């Protein structure tokens, strides 16, 4: 940790916000003059010298009113944040290279609106939002996810310069936030199903013998799996049924670490696997995922896809 960071941590008491909702009290709102505020002060000083020099009584009044305006603006800038309630939501997984969006529900419990609230993660794009009196809003604070893995975006900077831009008030809400970032998919042709290869891993599972159930036939199903007896028993002839077998049936696709080009980096190989998962999912294949030290049995559907992608995202992490 750099000394500057240590100072910041001590000064701004950056700790995780465990209690929800996060309410912005005065101890966690900081305020300093902006560059415009500094310019304003300099202009006032020069004006004061002019007013004294030329004995302009009304000039004094003007300067004092402006000085009062600056002080009042400070109070208003502070109040623009004070008492705001934040409830963080769960961030949906995203792919590396895309924006991760961290949802944040805002509640304004007072009768005045709050304007020009700016949310951002460090060095990330800014989201601006206005809140009506007694209003609520949900925003998504973006974070450019450039690496796969579990993304911790750090604290949010919530800043405002409203109303006059002479002061900047800010706060550092730090919710326990995480977003799973999938590897950036690399589209390569799907590997061809190889029963032999699959059998290797399944230690001679005679997959065709583990009858698991029936399902409606799809065009890609081989005819030898049609459950003719079951079809004969049913009155409507349109739906041919397929016998399903658990285990390494030959129509199941194994997406394997070893099938990816061995000369490429770990990240690239994960990207290729991610691309395969997406392709297999689009083609509605049953697929399983094989990673060193990890195996996900073949299945289909949204949950399975997420499961596989998450395994890829977190590969190598604890």
């Amino acid at each position, binding site marked *: 940790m750099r000394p500057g960071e240590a100072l910041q941590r001590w000064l701004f008491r950056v700790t995780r916000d465990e209690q*929800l*909702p996060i309410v912005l009290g005065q101890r966690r709102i900081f305020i300093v003059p902006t*560059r*415009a505020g500094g*310019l*304003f002060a300099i*202009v*006032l000083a*020069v*004006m004061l*010298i*002019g*007013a*004294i*020099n*030329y*004995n*302009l*009584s*009304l*000039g*004094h*009044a*003007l*300067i*004092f*009113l*402006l*000085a*009062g*305006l600056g*002080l*009042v*603006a400070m*109070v*208003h800038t*502070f*109040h623009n944040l*004070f*008492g705001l309630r934040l409830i963080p939501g769960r961030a949906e997984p995203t792919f590396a290279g895309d924006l991760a969006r961290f949802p944040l529900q805002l509640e304004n*419990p*007072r*009768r*005045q609106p709050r*304007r*020009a609230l*700016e949310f951002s993660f460090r*060095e*990330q*794009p*800014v989201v*601006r939002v*206005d809140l009506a009196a007694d209003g609520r809003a949900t925003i998504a604070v973006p974070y*450019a996810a450039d690496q796969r893995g579990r993304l911790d975006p750090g604290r949010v900077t919530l800043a405002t*310069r*409203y*109303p*006059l*831009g*002479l002061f900047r008030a800010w706060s550092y809400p730090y919710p326990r936030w995480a977003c799973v970032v999938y590897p950036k998919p690399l589209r390569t042709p799907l590997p061809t199903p190889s029963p032999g290869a699959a059998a290797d891993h399944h230690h001679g599972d005679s997959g065709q013998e583990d009858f698991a159930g029936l399902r409606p036939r799809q065009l890609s199903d081989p005819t030898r799996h049609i459950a003719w007896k079951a079809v004969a028993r049913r009155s409507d002839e349109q739906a041919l049924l397929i016998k399903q077998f658990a285990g390494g049936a030959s129509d199941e696709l194994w997406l394997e670490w070893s099938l990816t080009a061995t000369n490429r980096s770990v990240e690239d190989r994960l990207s290729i696997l991610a691309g395969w998962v997406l392709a297999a999912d689009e083609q509605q294949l049953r697929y399983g995922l094989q990673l060193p030290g990890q195996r996900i049995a073949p299945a289909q559907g949204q949950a399975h896809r997420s499961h596989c992608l998450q395994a890829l995202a977190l590969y190598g992490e604890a």
Partner: protein
Amino acid sequence: MKRSQQPVDALEHGAVPWLLAGALATAGPHASHLPAWLSLLVAGAMIWRAGLWWQHRPLPARWLLGLLVIGGVAAIAWQFHSLLGKDAGVAMLVLLMALKPLEMRSRRDAQVIVMLGFFLLLTHYFYSQSIPTGLWLLAAMTLLTGALIRLHGGAQPVTTIARQAALLLLQALPFLLILYLLFPRVSGPLWGLPQDAYSGLSGLSEQMSPGSISNLIQSGAIALRSRFAGEVPEKADLYWRGPVFDAYDGSTWRAAAAQRAGPAPVIEARGPLQAYTNLVEAHNQRWLLALDVPTSLPPDSSLAPTLEALAREPLRVRARFSLVSALDYRANRVEAAATLTQALSLPAQLNPRARALAGEWRSRTPEKIAEAALAMFRTEDFHYTLRPPLLGRDAVDEFLFTSRRGFCEHYASAFVFLMRAAGVPARVVAGYQGGEVNPVDGYLTVRQSDAHAWAEIWLAGEGWVRIDPTAAVAPSRIEQGIAAALPEGEPLPAIIRLDADWLRQLRNRWEAANNSWNQWVLGYNPQRQREVLSRLGWRDPDWQSMTATLAALCGLALLIVTLWTLPRRRPADPVQRAWQKYCAQLAQRGVRRAEWEGPLDFAQRVARERPDLAALTSEAAGYYAELRYGRSGEGQLRLLQGCVRRLPPSRRRRI
């Protein structure tokens, strides 16, 4: 993708009209005293910018603006012969204000414009510090504040912005009052002021030539206001003494150089003294315009040998003086020989007829000589008019024997000439005569149109005696004022000719308001500040204690504003309150309801964790759910509140 700060800082299209309006409101009023070409340039630049905004067109190239700036600065330098100084400085600021919007791209540019606007507001006070100016500038300030709000708060209805800006200014008012009252005042100037700093101040001048007073009379502007401790004296006794002229070159009266060096005057009051306070408008000369003759002077002033009260420095701002005068007096019964010699000197060879006439009077006593001259004005065909014919080389002769039409300066000048020619020491005194009481605030108002010139002769044993030859010709001038003395058709300002009563009353009210404004706002100088503070019971404030008090009061005001704007808590609804109270009581007994837990879920959990509280909690939760989601009224609320009381004491758990 990173650091996409740009859109935040770019200037919104909708903010531009606010900034243009602010620029116009702050630079526009300067048109009245700027050269016409600059006003046209400003107007052109504003219209250009507004057109670009309207059509969503890009701003002009920087080199073009650079050329405009250089051209403008050069033209200003040529016009004012300098880039320093008040007028040239204001012209430069106005030029900047007109051109800056043409390169206004970011929010920072816009902030610069607003700051420039605040600065320009101050420059208006060089030219006027009247009430209307103050009000206009308050409006312009609201506009500029609104521009900042629009700039940082995004698109909002105009009324919302205006209300917010007005609210901010309203809350800033206490600070204005505290700072105005307590900020340690320093009398300027801090450094030498440019030469044009005091141009445009009007009043009596250091010399009197034909026409100088009748020009002044055209102005209805106020020269001074005065408040008397007692009754206001008779109008005919009110001679406000300005410069004294004792050197004459045949056309112009001046103060002799030796005049200031004489011994201090000796004054014997022969009647009651008048105490009064003068508020003298800035006239860029040293005289205080005391009533003839002052016996007690304010600090930092002195009485000249010729009896006029003089300040140490020329009056460049409106100033307030407490004075005491004796209206009936004897002054300088013993006079320095040099002064008397000066009071007898005449240019050689001019005005032979007047000399001859005066020569006939030489054998009489000085009183008789003066009487003879006044009798001549009174009985012969002399006229009092603001439009006398032009006089030639022998001005006094022509006036006395040919034209016989003139104004106070002609009469005073001719009278003094005759006196000197007859051997009576005499001199011309200029000042103001009379005044009018404003019934609204009781102040006597003396205008430029009350400017007057009269004569003084020196009589052995009597000292200097005032003789007003104008009174011989037009007595009403002295008794009722200039408007009554002049025939119809004379060019007088409308303000002193007012006939309609209601108009006069309106004017009186307006001037009374102005007077308070002048005294309390404009005339609030270090001395006035000390006076006010000591009236508030604070003797001898020094700047340290003033600053400390100032800071303390500002802190207090800040606290009040903070509390005022604090988010007001809504009165919680009683059902919610009762339920929260119940839950809080339960939390003390070890079952804490989570934020997300509904009443019935919570009751079930309580039933599992604390069977002893199960029945009561499920009852309370039932009431609450019914009150919240069903249709029920007061009765159930009371039952819910009853549940809180029916809870067993929390201590029992520990035993």
